[in-house]
Protein backbone atom coordinates (compact mmCIF):
# COMPACT_ATOMS: atom_id res chain seq x y z
CA UNK A 1 0.00 0.00 0.00
CA UNK A 2 1.35 3.38 -0.92
CA UNK A 3 2.48 5.55 1.98
CA UNK A 4 0.40 8.63 2.74
CA UNK A 5 1.79 12.04 3.19
CA UNK A 6 0.00 14.57 5.30
CA UNK A 7 -1.46 16.37 2.37
CA UNK A 8 -4.88 17.74 1.42
CA UNK A 9 -4.78 16.01 -1.96
CA UNK A 10 -4.20 12.62 -0.42
CA UNK A 11 -6.89 13.17 2.13
CA UNK A 12 -9.33 14.40 -0.50
CA UNK A 13 -8.77 11.37 -2.72
CA UNK A 14 -9.16 9.05 0.22
CA UNK A 15 -12.33 10.78 1.31
CA UNK A 16 -13.74 10.73 -2.20
CA UNK A 17 -13.12 7.01 -2.53
CA UNK A 18 -14.70 6.33 0.80
CA UNK A 19 -17.82 8.38 0.13
CA UNK A 20 -18.27 6.56 -3.18
CA UNK A 21 -17.71 3.01 -1.95
CA UNK A 22 -17.75 3.13 1.87
CA UNK A 23 -15.11 0.41 1.83
CA UNK A 24 -13.03 -0.89 4.68
CA UNK A 25 -9.78 -0.36 2.80
CA UNK A 26 -10.24 3.42 2.80
CA UNK A 27 -10.97 3.33 6.51
CA UNK A 28 -7.79 1.38 7.08
CA UNK A 29 -5.91 4.01 5.08
CA UNK A 30 -7.58 6.71 7.15
CA UNK A 31 -6.17 5.00 10.22
CA UNK A 32 -2.70 5.04 8.67
CA UNK A 33 -3.19 8.70 7.86
CA UNK A 34 -4.07 9.56 11.45
CA UNK A 35 -1.08 7.64 12.82
CA UNK A 36 1.23 9.41 10.41
CA UNK A 37 -0.27 12.74 11.48
CA UNK A 38 0.43 11.96 15.11
CA UNK A 39 4.03 11.13 14.29
CA UNK A 40 4.33 14.57 12.73
CA UNK A 41 2.65 16.25 15.71
CA UNK A 42 -0.31 17.36 13.62
CA UNK A 43 -3.01 18.62 15.96
CA UNK A 44 -6.69 17.62 15.74
CA UNK A 45 -7.81 21.06 14.54
CA UNK A 46 -5.46 20.81 11.58
CA UNK A 47 -6.96 17.48 10.57
CA UNK A 48 -10.40 19.04 10.70
CA UNK A 49 -9.14 21.92 8.62
CA UNK A 50 -7.85 19.49 6.02
CA UNK A 51 -11.22 17.78 6.10
CA UNK A 52 -13.03 21.09 5.53
CA UNK A 53 -10.79 21.96 2.59
CA UNK A 54 -11.18 18.53 1.03
CA UNK A 55 -14.93 18.66 1.49
CA UNK A 56 -15.14 22.08 -0.21
CA UNK A 57 -13.06 20.88 -3.13
CA UNK A 58 -15.23 17.80 -3.56
CA UNK A 59 -18.50 19.68 -3.10
CA UNK A 60 -18.08 23.28 -4.18
CA UNK A 61 -21.77 23.87 -3.47
CA UNK A 62 -21.57 22.70 0.11
CA UNK A 63 -24.53 24.05 2.09
CA UNK A 64 -23.45 26.92 4.33
CA UNK A 65 -24.96 25.12 7.34
CA UNK A 66 -22.45 22.27 6.87
CA UNK A 67 -19.62 24.74 6.35
CA UNK A 68 -20.45 26.63 9.55
CA UNK A 69 -20.87 23.45 11.50
CA UNK A 70 -17.40 22.29 10.41
CA UNK A 71 -15.92 25.59 11.57
CA UNK A 72 -17.70 25.12 14.86
CA UNK A 73 -16.14 21.68 15.22
CA UNK A 74 -12.71 23.11 14.44
CA UNK A 75 -13.05 25.68 17.22
CA UNK A 76 -14.14 23.02 19.63
CA UNK A 77 -11.08 20.91 18.91
CA UNK A 78 -8.49 23.59 19.64
CA UNK A 79 -8.38 22.83 23.36
CA UNK A 80 -8.15 19.11 22.70
CA UNK A 81 -5.18 19.83 20.49
CA UNK A 82 -3.52 21.74 23.31
CA UNK A 83 -4.22 18.98 25.79
CA UNK A 84 -2.68 16.50 23.37
CA UNK A 85 0.47 18.57 22.97
CA UNK A 86 0.76 18.99 26.70
CA UNK A 87 0.37 15.28 27.18
CA UNK A 88 3.21 14.69 24.73
CA UNK A 89 5.49 17.06 26.56
CA UNK A 90 4.62 15.56 29.95
CA UNK A 91 5.34 12.11 28.59
CA UNK A 92 8.78 13.25 27.52
CA UNK A 93 9.38 14.71 30.96
CA UNK A 94 8.30 11.48 32.60
CA UNK A 95 10.78 9.60 30.49
CA UNK A 96 13.53 11.93 31.63
CA UNK A 97 12.56 11.49 35.29
CA UNK A 98 12.47 7.73 34.98
CA UNK A 99 15.91 7.60 33.51
CA UNK A 100 17.20 9.93 36.21
CA UNK A 101 15.79 7.66 38.90
CA UNK A 102 17.30 4.62 37.33
CA UNK A 103 20.68 6.35 37.23
CA UNK A 104 20.23 7.23 40.91
CA UNK A 105 19.33 3.62 41.70
CA UNK A 106 22.50 2.41 39.99
CA UNK A 107 24.49 5.00 41.86
CA UNK A 108 22.96 3.84 45.11
CA UNK A 109 24.02 0.29 44.34
CA UNK A 110 27.58 1.40 43.73
CA UNK A 111 27.72 3.68 46.77
CA UNK A 112 26.26 1.13 49.12
CA UNK A 113 27.91 -1.96 47.75
CA UNK A 114 29.32 -4.25 50.38
CA UNK A 115 31.37 -7.35 49.76
CA UNK A 116 30.20 -10.55 51.29
CA UNK A 117 33.37 -11.83 52.98
CA UNK A 118 34.83 -15.23 52.21
CA UNK A 119 35.63 -16.83 55.54
CA UNK A 120 36.85 -20.34 55.91
CA UNK A 121 34.45 -22.50 57.84
CA UNK A 122 31.59 -20.03 57.35
CA UNK A 123 28.87 -20.03 54.74
CA UNK A 124 27.15 -16.67 54.23
CA UNK A 125 24.20 -15.87 52.01
CA UNK A 126 22.66 -12.42 51.56
CA UNK A 127 19.92 -11.02 49.36
CA UNK A 128 18.23 -7.61 49.26
CA UNK A 129 15.51 -6.81 46.76
CA UNK A 130 13.78 -3.42 46.59
CA UNK A 131 10.01 -3.27 46.00
CA UNK A 132 10.50 -0.07 43.99
CA UNK A 133 13.56 1.14 42.16
CA UNK A 134 15.40 2.41 45.22
CA UNK A 135 16.09 0.13 48.15
CA UNK A 136 15.27 1.24 51.71
CA UNK A 137 16.82 -1.90 53.13
CA UNK A 138 20.53 -2.32 53.58
CA UNK A 139 23.07 -4.83 54.77
CA UNK A 140 26.73 -4.34 55.46
CA UNK A 141 29.66 -6.63 56.20
CA UNK A 142 33.00 -5.65 57.68
CA UNK A 143 35.90 -7.76 58.89
CA UNK A 144 38.84 -6.86 61.12
CA UNK A 145 42.27 -8.25 62.07
CA UNK A 146 40.99 -10.08 65.16
CA UNK A 147 38.82 -12.62 63.34
CA UNK A 148 35.71 -10.52 63.76
CA UNK A 149 32.92 -10.14 61.27
CA UNK A 150 30.54 -7.22 61.73
CA UNK A 151 27.12 -7.51 60.13
CA UNK A 152 24.55 -4.75 59.96
CA UNK A 153 21.04 -5.09 58.58
CA UNK A 154 18.88 -1.97 58.42
CA UNK A 155 15.55 -0.67 57.22
CA UNK A 156 14.83 2.99 56.60
CA UNK A 157 11.19 3.83 57.23
CA UNK A 158 9.89 5.83 54.41
CA UNK A 159 10.52 4.29 51.05
CA UNK A 160 12.10 5.25 47.77
CA UNK A 161 14.47 8.12 47.22
CA UNK A 162 14.47 9.77 50.68
CA UNK A 163 15.13 6.38 52.26
CA UNK A 164 17.99 5.73 49.88
CA UNK A 165 19.57 9.08 50.73
CA UNK A 166 19.40 8.32 54.44
CA UNK A 167 20.99 4.94 53.84
CA UNK A 168 24.13 6.47 52.36
CA UNK A 169 24.56 8.37 55.62
CA UNK A 170 24.40 5.11 57.58
CA UNK A 171 26.92 3.41 55.36
CA UNK A 172 29.50 6.18 55.69
CA UNK A 173 29.07 6.34 59.45
CA UNK A 174 29.61 2.59 59.67
CA UNK A 175 32.75 2.92 57.55
CA UNK A 176 34.16 5.51 59.89
CA UNK A 177 34.11 3.36 63.04
CA UNK A 178 37.56 2.13 64.05
CA UNK A 179 37.99 -1.63 64.53
CA UNK A 180 38.38 -1.21 68.26
CA UNK A 181 34.90 0.23 68.63
CA UNK A 182 32.87 -2.47 66.99
CA UNK A 183 30.81 -3.57 69.95
CA UNK A 184 27.20 -3.67 68.70
CA UNK A 185 25.68 -1.55 71.44
CA UNK A 186 28.36 1.14 71.06
CA UNK A 187 27.89 1.25 67.32
CA UNK A 188 24.13 1.63 67.64
CA UNK A 189 24.50 4.38 70.26
CA UNK A 190 26.76 6.31 67.90
CA UNK A 191 24.55 5.79 64.87
CA UNK A 192 21.53 6.87 66.87
CA UNK A 193 23.19 10.23 67.50
CA UNK A 194 24.21 10.59 63.85
CA UNK A 195 20.72 9.83 62.61
CA UNK A 196 19.07 11.99 65.27
CA UNK A 197 21.19 14.98 64.31
CA UNK A 198 20.51 14.58 60.61
CA UNK A 199 16.88 13.65 60.29
CA UNK A 200 15.39 15.72 63.11
CA UNK A 201 11.91 17.08 62.42
CA UNK A 202 10.97 14.38 60.00
CA UNK A 203 8.97 11.25 60.50
CA UNK A 204 11.86 9.22 59.14
CA UNK A 205 13.58 6.67 61.29
CA UNK A 206 15.83 3.69 60.84
CA UNK A 207 15.81 0.24 62.40
CA UNK A 208 19.03 -1.73 62.59
CA UNK A 209 20.31 -5.03 63.89
CA UNK A 210 24.04 -5.21 64.43
CA UNK A 211 25.97 -8.39 65.11
CA UNK A 212 29.66 -8.90 65.82
CA UNK A 213 30.76 -12.43 65.20
CA UNK A 214 34.10 -13.99 66.04
CA UNK A 215 34.51 -16.70 63.48
CA UNK A 216 37.30 -18.48 65.36
CA UNK A 217 35.35 -18.88 68.57
CA UNK A 218 31.76 -18.78 67.27
CA UNK A 219 30.94 -16.06 69.80
CA UNK A 220 28.23 -13.71 68.50
CA UNK A 221 27.22 -10.45 70.17
CA UNK A 222 24.23 -8.51 68.99
CA UNK A 223 22.12 -5.44 69.62
CA UNK A 224 18.99 -4.18 67.99
CA UNK A 225 17.67 -0.70 67.38
CA UNK A 226 14.01 -1.55 67.03
CA UNK A 227 14.73 -4.00 64.24
CA UNK A 228 12.72 -7.05 63.31
CA UNK A 229 14.10 -9.91 65.47
CA UNK A 230 16.26 -12.50 63.74
CA UNK A 231 16.51 -16.21 64.46
CA UNK A 232 19.14 -18.55 65.80
CA UNK A 233 18.95 -22.12 64.63
CA UNK A 234 20.49 -24.52 67.11
CA UNK A 235 21.48 -27.71 65.29
CA UNK A 236 21.86 -29.77 68.48
CA UNK A 237 18.22 -29.07 69.42
CA UNK A 238 17.03 -28.75 65.81
CA UNK A 239 15.11 -25.65 66.89
CA UNK A 240 14.80 -21.96 66.02
CA UNK A 241 15.04 -19.29 68.70
CA UNK A 242 14.16 -15.65 68.27
CA UNK A 243 17.14 -13.34 68.79
CA UNK A 244 15.66 -10.19 70.17
CA UNK A 245 16.96 -7.39 72.33
CA UNK A 246 15.29 -4.26 73.59
CA UNK A 247 16.29 -1.00 71.91
CA UNK A 248 14.65 2.05 70.38
CA UNK A 249 14.75 2.74 66.65
CA UNK A 250 17.50 5.11 65.50
CA UNK A 251 16.86 8.81 65.23
CA UNK A 252 13.95 9.32 67.61
CA UNK A 253 15.54 10.13 70.93
CA UNK A 254 19.06 11.44 71.53
CA UNK A 255 20.17 9.51 74.57
CA UNK A 256 19.50 5.84 74.08
CA UNK A 257 21.45 2.87 75.36
CA UNK A 258 21.21 -0.47 73.68
CA UNK A 259 21.03 -3.84 75.33
CA UNK A 260 23.62 -6.31 74.06
CA UNK A 261 23.22 -10.08 74.21
CA UNK A 262 25.30 -12.97 72.95
CA UNK A 263 25.19 -16.56 71.84
CA UNK A 264 27.88 -19.03 70.85
CA UNK A 265 27.41 -20.75 67.54
CA UNK A 266 28.38 -24.39 67.18
CA UNK A 267 29.02 -26.41 64.05
CA UNK A 268 25.79 -26.65 62.00
CA UNK A 269 24.16 -23.66 63.71
CA UNK A 270 22.76 -20.81 61.70
CA UNK A 271 21.79 -17.20 62.30
CA UNK A 272 19.02 -15.63 60.23
CA UNK A 273 18.75 -11.85 59.89
CA UNK A 274 15.89 -10.23 58.02
CA UNK A 275 13.73 -7.15 57.53
CA UNK A 276 9.99 -6.76 57.91
CA UNK A 277 9.60 -7.23 54.15
CA UNK A 278 9.96 -10.91 55.03
CA UNK A 279 7.81 -11.12 58.14
CA UNK A 280 5.07 -8.75 56.97
CA UNK A 281 4.51 -10.75 53.83
CA UNK A 282 0.87 -10.90 52.83
CA UNK A 283 -0.72 -13.99 51.45
CA UNK A 284 -3.97 -12.82 49.90
CA UNK A 285 -5.89 -11.18 52.74
CA UNK A 286 -3.84 -12.48 55.65
CA UNK A 287 -0.33 -12.10 56.96
CA UNK A 288 2.25 -14.81 57.14
CA UNK A 289 2.83 -16.22 60.64
CA UNK A 290 6.30 -16.57 62.13
CA UNK A 291 5.95 -20.37 62.11
CA UNK A 292 5.32 -20.27 58.38
CA UNK A 293 8.38 -18.09 57.79
CA UNK A 294 10.48 -20.58 59.72
CA UNK A 295 8.97 -23.48 57.80
CA UNK A 296 10.04 -21.88 54.53
CA UNK A 297 13.53 -21.24 55.90
CA UNK A 298 13.76 -24.83 57.11
CA UNK A 299 12.76 -26.06 53.67
CA UNK A 300 15.78 -24.45 52.03
CA UNK A 301 18.41 -24.16 54.76
CA UNK A 302 20.23 -27.35 53.77
CA UNK A 303 21.33 -25.60 50.57
CA UNK A 304 24.53 -23.54 50.34
CA UNK A 305 23.71 -20.23 52.10
CA UNK A 306 23.54 -18.01 49.00
CA UNK A 307 21.39 -20.49 47.13
CA UNK A 308 19.21 -20.87 50.22
CA UNK A 309 18.42 -17.14 50.65
CA UNK A 310 17.68 -16.84 46.95
CA UNK A 311 15.35 -19.82 47.11
CA UNK A 312 13.55 -18.38 50.12
CA UNK A 313 13.18 -15.09 48.27
CA UNK A 314 11.72 -16.78 45.21
CA UNK A 315 9.35 -18.70 47.43
CA UNK A 316 8.07 -15.48 49.03
CA UNK A 317 7.93 -13.72 45.70
CA UNK A 318 5.60 -16.41 44.43
CA UNK A 319 3.48 -16.33 47.58
CA UNK A 320 2.88 -12.62 46.96
CA UNK A 321 2.10 -13.03 43.27
CA UNK A 322 5.42 -11.47 42.30
CA UNK A 323 4.41 -8.07 43.72
CA UNK A 324 6.65 -7.13 46.64
CA UNK A 325 4.94 -4.68 48.96
CA UNK A 326 8.09 -3.90 50.86
CA UNK A 327 11.83 -4.19 50.36
CA UNK A 328 13.01 -7.71 51.17
CA UNK A 329 16.35 -8.51 52.82
CA UNK A 330 17.52 -11.83 54.19
CA UNK A 331 20.91 -13.00 55.48
CA UNK A 332 21.94 -16.54 56.43
CA UNK A 333 25.07 -17.04 58.48
CA UNK A 334 25.92 -20.73 58.67
CA UNK A 335 28.73 -22.25 60.70
Amino acid at each position, binding site marked *: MEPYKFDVNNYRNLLKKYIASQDEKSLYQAEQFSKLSMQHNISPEEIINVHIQALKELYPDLPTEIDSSMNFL*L*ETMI*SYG*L*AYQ*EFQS*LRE*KQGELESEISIAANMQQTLLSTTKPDIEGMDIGAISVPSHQMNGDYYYFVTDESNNLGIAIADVIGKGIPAALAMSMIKYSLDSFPDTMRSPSVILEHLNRVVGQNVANTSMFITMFYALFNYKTGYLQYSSAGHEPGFYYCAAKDQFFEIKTKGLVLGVSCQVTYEQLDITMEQGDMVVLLTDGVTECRIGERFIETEEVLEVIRQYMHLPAQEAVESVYRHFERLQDFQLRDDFTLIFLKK
Partner: protein
Amino acid sequence: MITKSSVQINKEWDIVGARQMGRELAKDLGFGTVDQARIATAISELARNIYLYAKKGKIAYETVEKMNQKGLKIIASDQGPGINDLSKVMEDGFSTSGGLGAGLPGVKRLMDYFDVVSEPGKGTTITTIKWVR
Protein backbone atom coordinates in the same frame (compact mmCIF):
# COMPACT_ATOMS: atom_id res chain seq x y z
CA MET B 1 -0.03 50.75 8.50
CA ILE B 2 -0.17 49.99 12.16
CA THR B 3 -3.52 49.80 13.91
CA LYS B 4 -4.03 49.67 17.61
CA SER B 5 -7.14 48.87 19.56
CA SER B 6 -8.13 47.33 22.88
CA VAL B 7 -10.92 45.74 24.88
CA GLN B 8 -11.46 46.22 28.61
CA ILE B 9 -12.07 43.07 30.65
CA ASN B 10 -14.39 43.70 33.60
CA LYS B 11 -16.89 40.88 33.41
CA GLU B 12 -17.05 37.41 31.92
CA TRP B 13 -18.91 38.56 28.78
CA ASP B 14 -16.05 40.88 27.90
CA ILE B 15 -14.05 37.76 27.09
CA VAL B 16 -16.38 37.20 24.12
CA GLY B 17 -15.82 40.76 22.93
CA ALA B 18 -12.07 40.31 23.18
CA ARG B 19 -12.21 37.10 21.14
CA GLN B 20 -14.42 38.75 18.55
CA MET B 21 -12.12 41.69 18.03
CA GLY B 22 -9.07 39.42 17.84
CA ARG B 23 -10.73 37.19 15.28
CA GLU B 24 -11.79 40.10 13.07
CA LEU B 25 -8.30 41.58 13.10
CA ALA B 26 -6.83 38.16 12.36
CA LYS B 27 -9.20 37.65 9.45
CA ASP B 28 -8.32 41.08 8.01
CA LEU B 29 -4.63 40.31 8.27
CA GLY B 30 -5.12 37.15 6.24
CA PHE B 31 -4.86 34.42 8.88
CA GLY B 32 -6.36 31.05 7.91
CA THR B 33 -9.30 29.48 9.75
CA VAL B 34 -7.16 27.31 12.02
CA ASP B 35 -4.95 30.21 13.07
CA GLN B 36 -7.98 32.42 13.63
CA ALA B 37 -9.34 29.79 15.97
CA ARG B 38 -5.98 29.53 17.72
CA ILE B 39 -5.71 33.26 18.20
CA ALA B 40 -9.26 33.41 19.56
CA THR B 41 -8.50 30.57 21.99
CA ALA B 42 -5.31 32.29 23.18
CA ILE B 43 -7.19 35.55 23.75
CA SER B 44 -9.87 33.64 25.63
CA GLU B 45 -7.30 32.13 27.92
CA LEU B 46 -5.56 35.47 28.59
CA ALA B 47 -8.85 37.29 29.15
CA ARG B 48 -10.12 34.56 31.46
CA ASN B 49 -6.98 34.80 33.55
CA ILE B 50 -7.57 38.54 33.92
CA TYR B 51 -11.22 38.03 34.81
CA LEU B 52 -10.49 35.23 37.33
CA TYR B 53 -7.37 36.51 39.08
CA ALA B 54 -7.13 40.26 38.56
CA LYS B 55 -10.87 41.06 38.16
CA LYS B 56 -10.13 43.77 35.61
CA GLY B 57 -7.60 44.48 32.91
CA LYS B 58 -7.17 45.02 29.21
CA ILE B 59 -6.51 43.11 26.00
CA ALA B 60 -4.73 45.32 23.44
CA TYR B 61 -4.12 44.53 19.77
CA GLU B 62 -1.52 45.79 17.37
CA THR B 63 -0.70 44.81 13.84
CA VAL B 64 3.03 44.33 13.46
CA GLU B 65 5.34 43.84 10.54
CA LYS B 66 8.80 42.37 10.09
CA MET B 67 10.54 41.81 6.78
CA ASN B 68 7.69 40.73 4.53
CA GLN B 69 5.64 39.20 7.30
CA LYS B 70 2.58 40.57 8.97
CA GLY B 71 1.53 39.62 12.44
CA LEU B 72 -0.92 40.27 15.23
CA LYS B 73 0.41 41.30 18.61
CA ILE B 74 -1.80 40.78 21.63
CA ILE B 75 -0.98 42.34 24.96
CA ALA B 76 -2.88 41.32 28.07
CA SER B 77 -2.28 43.56 31.06
CA ASP B 78 -3.71 43.91 34.52
CA GLN B 79 -2.93 45.46 37.90
CA GLY B 80 -3.88 42.31 39.75
CA PRO B 81 -1.99 40.27 42.36
CA GLY B 82 0.72 39.20 39.90
CA ILE B 83 2.26 35.77 39.59
CA ASN B 84 4.54 34.61 42.39
CA ASP B 85 6.18 31.65 40.81
CA LEU B 86 6.37 32.14 37.07
CA SER B 87 8.30 29.00 36.32
CA LYS B 88 5.65 26.98 38.13
CA VAL B 89 2.84 28.62 36.16
CA MET B 90 4.70 27.96 32.91
CA GLU B 91 5.04 24.27 33.74
CA ASP B 92 2.92 21.79 31.85
CA GLY B 93 0.27 20.17 33.96
CA PHE B 94 0.14 22.94 36.54
CA SER B 95 -3.08 24.70 35.57
CA THR B 96 -4.59 21.93 33.49
CA SER B 97 -4.57 19.38 36.29
CA GLY B 98 -7.68 20.93 37.82
CA GLY B 99 -9.39 21.25 34.45
CA LEU B 100 -8.82 24.99 34.44
CA GLY B 101 -7.91 25.09 30.78
CA ALA B 102 -4.84 25.37 28.66
CA GLY B 103 -3.10 27.83 30.96
CA LEU B 104 -0.14 29.93 29.94
CA PRO B 105 1.82 27.03 28.41
CA GLY B 106 -1.20 26.55 26.13
CA VAL B 107 -1.15 30.20 25.07
CA LYS B 108 2.55 29.87 24.37
CA ARG B 109 1.87 26.87 22.13
CA LEU B 110 -0.93 28.61 20.26
CA MET B 111 1.16 31.68 19.46
CA ASP B 112 4.59 32.24 17.89
CA TYR B 113 6.02 34.64 20.44
CA PHE B 114 5.31 34.74 24.15
CA ASP B 115 6.62 36.92 26.95
CA VAL B 116 5.37 37.51 30.47
CA VAL B 117 6.38 40.16 32.97
CA SER B 118 4.84 39.97 36.41
CA GLU B 119 5.44 41.69 39.69
CA PRO B 120 3.68 40.31 42.77
CA GLY B 121 1.24 42.90 44.07
CA LYS B 122 1.54 45.09 40.99
CA GLY B 123 0.23 43.13 38.06
CA THR B 124 1.02 41.12 35.01
CA THR B 125 1.66 41.91 31.36
CA ILE B 126 1.69 39.16 28.77
CA THR B 127 2.79 39.91 25.22
CA THR B 128 2.20 37.45 22.39
CA ILE B 129 2.51 37.56 18.61
CA LYS B 130 1.20 35.33 15.86
CA TRP B 131 2.69 35.68 12.37
CA VAL B 132 0.69 35.15 9.20
CA ARG B 133 1.99 32.01 7.52
